[in-house]
Structures are given as C-alpha cells and as structure tokens.
C-alpha cells in the first residue's frame, strides 16, 4: 500500500519544472486550484486540461505515473461524481426514481467534478514530485512570513514541518520493520473480523509510539547540544532565489486566467 502511494514523493530530475523556485510552484499550485473553479463550460475545462497535461509533459515524468497516483483516490472521486449525477436536476431527464434523477445536467456536472478532481491531484502531484521536501518547507516558511505580524510562531511551525517531513520516511521504514517482526511472530494483518483486525494494530502502534518518543528525546538533546535555542534569531543556510523562469511561469498563469475569463459564460 505504502509502495503504491505516488503522491507526496519526490523524483529527482532536470526538467524546467524541477528548476522552478519552490515558492513559485506552491503559490502557482494554490492559484491553479483557485482558478479551477472559474471553469464552467467545456471550453474552459479543455483549456485547463490542456494546461495541466502541458505541465506534466514539461516535467519529463511519464503520464502513467500520474494516473497511478490517482488510483488510490478513485473510489472517493467516483463516489462524489455519482452523488453529483444523482442529485443535480435540470435539462432532459433520462431516468428518475424518488428523489434521485439522472439528467443531462447531472451527467455533465459529474464529468466536470471528475475532471476537477483529477486536475487537482495531477497538479499537486507535479508539485510534490518535482520539489524536494526541504525546498517545500522553505517555501511554506516563506509564504507564512507575513503572519508573524499576527504573533504566529512562524519559525517554530517551519521547524516542525521540516522535522515532520524528514521523519516520514524514517517512520515508514520503522513501521515496515515492526510489522515484519510481528508477522514473524505470527500476527496476520488483514485477516478476521473488524475487532480482530483492530487488535492487530496494537503490536505496531505501541512500539511505534515508544520509538517516536525516544527519537524525539534524542533529537531534542542533539539539537540543544548543537546550540539550538528556539526563540533566537537564526541565519539561514539554504536561500531560495527567483529566476527568470519563475517570471515566465507567473506570466503563463496570468495568460491562463485571461483565457479562462474570456471563455467563461456567465
């Protein structure tokens, strides 16, 4: 299962998208999701889809890979799509039963919802696949900076995010190891009724929590020994820099927005 999860992983590469500044990618990603809701007819959706596929092509990573990333979420998407179809009324009605009805509007709406979901997943996968977790943290810290005015502990939040990101693979590995050790002691996962399956989780969670506590203690000690003091001003080692391609990316987004607004029928 963990192996199959594509979303949230980083794939090293040398493409244009890889070289974009992490801040650009993050802001552009959110912006894209924002303007996605401007789309309301097939021309606008076609434009957005085209744009997304162009971005994917630019990353140099195979399409199949992105489609795999959608697979784990397919049931959630289909569920939403079916709900949309059943509860949207209007247009020609093909079939109806009580409060449910399949209408032409419903069908179109369902397709739109489907496209919207897939595009959001694709674009966020593009971001995580082409940006190292470290750069991503730096970008988040940068974007959060204005909130300092509101007494938000931005530095601490950035630190927590970077520590959390750093330890995700370590904890995954640990989980895998503990699961294997318990399987070797006769635990079978995914067998029996719900209660039995819940009980099997205990021999994994307790060791995992215990090792997390130990790890946290060690890490805090090591940080203190290296002179870390939370509230003090620090300098930064990694510095993000905007390049000309970030400007181009911004311009492309502006063009996309203009295109969308023009094609939109209100």
């Amino acid at each position, binding site marked *: 299962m963990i*192996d199959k999860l594509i979303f949230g992983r980083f794939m090293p590469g040398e493409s244009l998208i890889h070289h974009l500044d992490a801040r650009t990618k993050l802001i552009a990603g959110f912006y894209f999701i924002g303007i996605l809701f401007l789309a309301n007819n097939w021309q606008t959706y076609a434009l957005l889809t085209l744009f997304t596929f162009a971005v994917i092509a630019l990353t140099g990573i195979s399409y199949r890979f992105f489609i795999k990333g959608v697979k784990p979420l397919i049931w959630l998407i289909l569920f939403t799509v079916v709900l949309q179809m059943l509860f949207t009324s209007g247009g020609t009605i093909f079939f109806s039963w009580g409060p449910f009805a399949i209408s032409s509007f419903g069908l179109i709406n369902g397709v739109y919802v489907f496209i919207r979901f897939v595009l959001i997943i694709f674009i966020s996968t593009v971001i995580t696949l082409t940006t190292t977790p470290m750069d991503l943290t730096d970008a988040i810290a940068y974007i959060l900076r204005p909130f300092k005015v509101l007494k938000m502990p931005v530095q601490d939040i950035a630190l927590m995010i970077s520590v959390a990101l750093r330890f995700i693979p370590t904890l995954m590995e640990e989980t895998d190891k*503990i699961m294997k050790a318990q*399987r*070797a*002691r*006769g635990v079978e996962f995914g067998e029996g009724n719900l209660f039995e399956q819940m009980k099997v989780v*205990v021999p994994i969670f307790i060791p995992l929590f215990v090792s997390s506590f130990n790890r946290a203690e060690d890490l805090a000690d090591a940080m203190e020994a290296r002179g870390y003091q939370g509230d003090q001003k620090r300098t930064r080692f990694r510095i993000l820099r905007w390049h000309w391609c970030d400007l181009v990316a911004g311009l492309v987004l502006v063009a996309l927005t203009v295109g969308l607004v023009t094609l939109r029928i209100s």
Partner: protein
Amino acid sequence: MDITFEQVGYCYQKNSPFETRALQDVSVSLDSGSYTAIIGHTGSGKSTLLQHLNALLTPTEGVVTLGERVIKAGEKQKGLRDIRKRVGIVFQFPEAQLFEETVEKDICFGPLNFGVSEEDAKARARKVIVEVGLTEEILTRSPFELSGGQMRRVAIAGVLAMDPEVLVLDEPTAGLDPNGRHEIMEMFANLHKSKGLTTVLVTHSMEDAATYAEKVVLMKGGTVEQIATPREVFSNPDKLTELGLSVPDVVHFQRRFEQRFAVTLGKTCLTIDELVGEMVPFLGKGVAGG
C-alpha cells in the same frame, strides 16, 4: 528443515518507477541442523535474502523450498503461518518489537499466536528467560523500564519461545557491549548444538562468522559471490577487501606474521587457539636457533 533457493530473484516495487533489484539468481541450500553465516557489504541483499526464509517476502523469480513447502515466484501464497512458526527470525534491533505490559506477556505473544495454550506459553516464557541469561523476576516487569541489553534479550526470548526449528539472526549483537555480544553469541551456539537448530546468521562481524559458522555465504550486489567454509573464505583476504569487507583479526595477524618472518603456517587459523597451536612450532625453532 532443509531450505533451498533455486535461482531466486527479488525486485522491490516491481513495475513501478521505483523498481529496485535486490536479489538475482541466488541458489543456496541450507541443510537441516547447519550453521550458516551470510556476509556481504551493506546493500548486498543479505536482509532481503533473510526475509525469504520465513516467507515474509516471496520471490519474484525462482523457487524457494522451505521444508516441504515450495514457494514459486508469481504464485499466491496462503497459510504461511505454519512456516513462520517453524522459522524464527530475530531482526536487527529486535527490542523495537516489544509492546506488551509485562515481559511475560510479550514473550507469550508469539506462542499464543501460533495456538499454544496459555499455560504452556507461560511455562515456555519461564524457560526461555533463563536461557537468554535473565532471571524469572523480570517476567513481571514492563519491558520499557529495562536496559537496552535486557530488552534485546527479552525480544530474543520472545522468538525462542515459539520453539522454532530454524533460527535466523540478523545482526543480533549490533550495538551491544563486548561482554553482551560474546554471551549472546555463545547462547546461540549452545542452542544450535543442544536443540539441533538450523541457524542462519547475518553479520558484519567477521569474527563471529569465523568462530561459529560451518558455512559462509558471501553476497555481493544481490548475487552470491561464494559459498564455502569460513577457512576457505577467509584464506583469501584480498578478495574480501575488494568487496569492502575485512578478515578476522586473527587472520590478519597471521598474515602479518607470515610476511614478517617469511614463513607459511599450515592453515588459515580462525581462532586464537588455532593460531597459537600453529605458531608454537615456529616459536620453538626461533628460541632454539637463537
């Protein structure tokens, strides 16, 4: 329980962009009651090979035979619990697998999973806790208040309580002090002899491989480089150095001694006792000559 590997290959995350090959064309046979050491550089596939021994991983190519059970690549496997009962694995840093409230409950966990009665499991716990060098008082304590060394022993006891026929050890002494290392390795050697356990030891310690093993499997980049007796393997130090491995200190000393005095001892010595035995005649000559 005989274990054989026939041209076994294993790929992690097959058919994905993250596909990595860990084993290729591995053919090994481990006879019932033998003591085998698997050595090799980090990332040579030792741990992957080890997980095939109780079917935690099943091969993506080739055939693994565990006793009567034949595991072919690409076949869906069911009812592997019987295999796991007969093959106990002590993983690296096994103390990370402890979770119960008391040491006794934790040791009983394995046997209970394999359908042993509660009374019997408790009796086994009392027996194995002594075997691993701890006292019965510890059974009522929480595993999390023990020292690192004690936790390791409790974890090992938990595997031994399953009463396996094959004992697989993945660096069982990593991170222990010299005394603890020696005690634990001796304990495994004694169990091997007294119970006739088939023992498989994955180790970075060439001393342990030389002292205890009857057969050494040398791994390199996911393939088997050499299968031989420890004496044969360690008689060629240059090859081991090439693979990023070392030879036991005894062998190293013997080589330096031979070079320094331009002599050749009768055989490659694996223990200090052997070395002393071989060196005495030469030393005697030296004294007589001088």
